[in-house]
């Protein structure tokens, strides 16, 4: 499987901005498929960002977050070259993670 996370972390002053796009269907469970049956809900429940061994942010999501979700957040205390790790898990237990260097 191709990497599901595209991310970028950029430092401006003392603040790091993390932006990420995740490839995910984010099915609501309300949509009907071609066969007329409902497509089961399948969505990311949590996205976690870690820096230097600490969790910076955890996003908890319901199925109302858009398909191929986007998120952005900011934090302080990191420097250029540091690694930022992003991981997600969905309601079916699938998961993925990715790392980026702060630029």
């Amino acid at each position: 499987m191709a990497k599901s996370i595209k991310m970028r972390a950029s430092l401006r002053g003392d603040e790091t901005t993390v932006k990420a796009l995740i490839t995910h269907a984010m099915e609501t469970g309300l949509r009907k498929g071609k066969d007329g049956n409902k497509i089961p809900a399948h969505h990311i429940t949590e996205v976690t960002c870690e820096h230097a061994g600490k969790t910076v942010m955890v996003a908890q999501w319901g199925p109302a977050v858009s398909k191929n979700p986007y998120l952005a957040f900011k934090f302080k205390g990191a420097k250029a070259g540091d690694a930022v790790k992003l991981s997600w898990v969905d309601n079916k237990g699938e998961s993925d993670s990715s790392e980026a260097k702060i630029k």
Partner: protein
Amino acid sequence: MLKKILLAIPAAMFAVSVQAAEPSDSPYEVLTELLSKNKDDLYLNQSQQNLMIMPDDPALFTAEEGEALFKEKRGPKNASLEGCDFGKGPGVLKGAYVEMPRYFADTDKVMTFESRLVHCMVTLQGFDKKDKQVKKRHGSGSDMMKLTTYIAMQSNGMPWNPRMDHPKEKALRDAGEVLFYRRSGPMDFNCATCHGQEGKRIRASVLPYINNPAEWTKAVSWPATRVGQNNVRSTFHRVRGCLYQMRYPNLKQGSETATALVSFWTDAARGQPAILPDTKR
């Protein structure tokens, strides 16, 4: 250049939280500049939503993937595309996209960007036209769209300037103009049915007007993320979509007929800044 643009994005998005942005030429800034000169234009100003998505357009990631693909040695000949001549010399990308379609002596043909990219993938890298790297033309996940988005982005902000030096370039552009106005099919449509008047809407969407270059540059600025389709789309994808709604038969990609239409529509945006990649509904 890509890095510079991506770094500038937070600045563009929230002027409140950041001081002066560094000199930048992100597609978002090219468009906002165009909007500032056309404040009352209905077509250009119709989507606040897309404007808000644009600084973080998924196409920017597509371009980044395209850059890696462009530089990678690939195909049976294990060559990168850095030797490809898009009209301004091998490997010269800056400004190449806005000068397409153009005449190429090596093929003795006027080629669209897409045809030229296929030509290079076949001749330089040794791919067969049936290989998936070449054959799959649509979707952000396709090599073609990744490469196209990256290369097009190297012309962001530059004025559209399709070459008209060779007689074949002019001939195709002029034939494309006739095709634009030619009415046929069960609905009697031509392209001008929708694009022949300013400020008209098809359902809720304001349509671009062919004789307003400031509108037309946004109309022809592909690749662009189609927000409603969750994908980066190409020039040909747009042309095909129009012909589909016009009830025309399928148009073959890379055909001279397609080149003629694209030559005319690019020429109609001449002089206006290309927004590459753009964000569309």
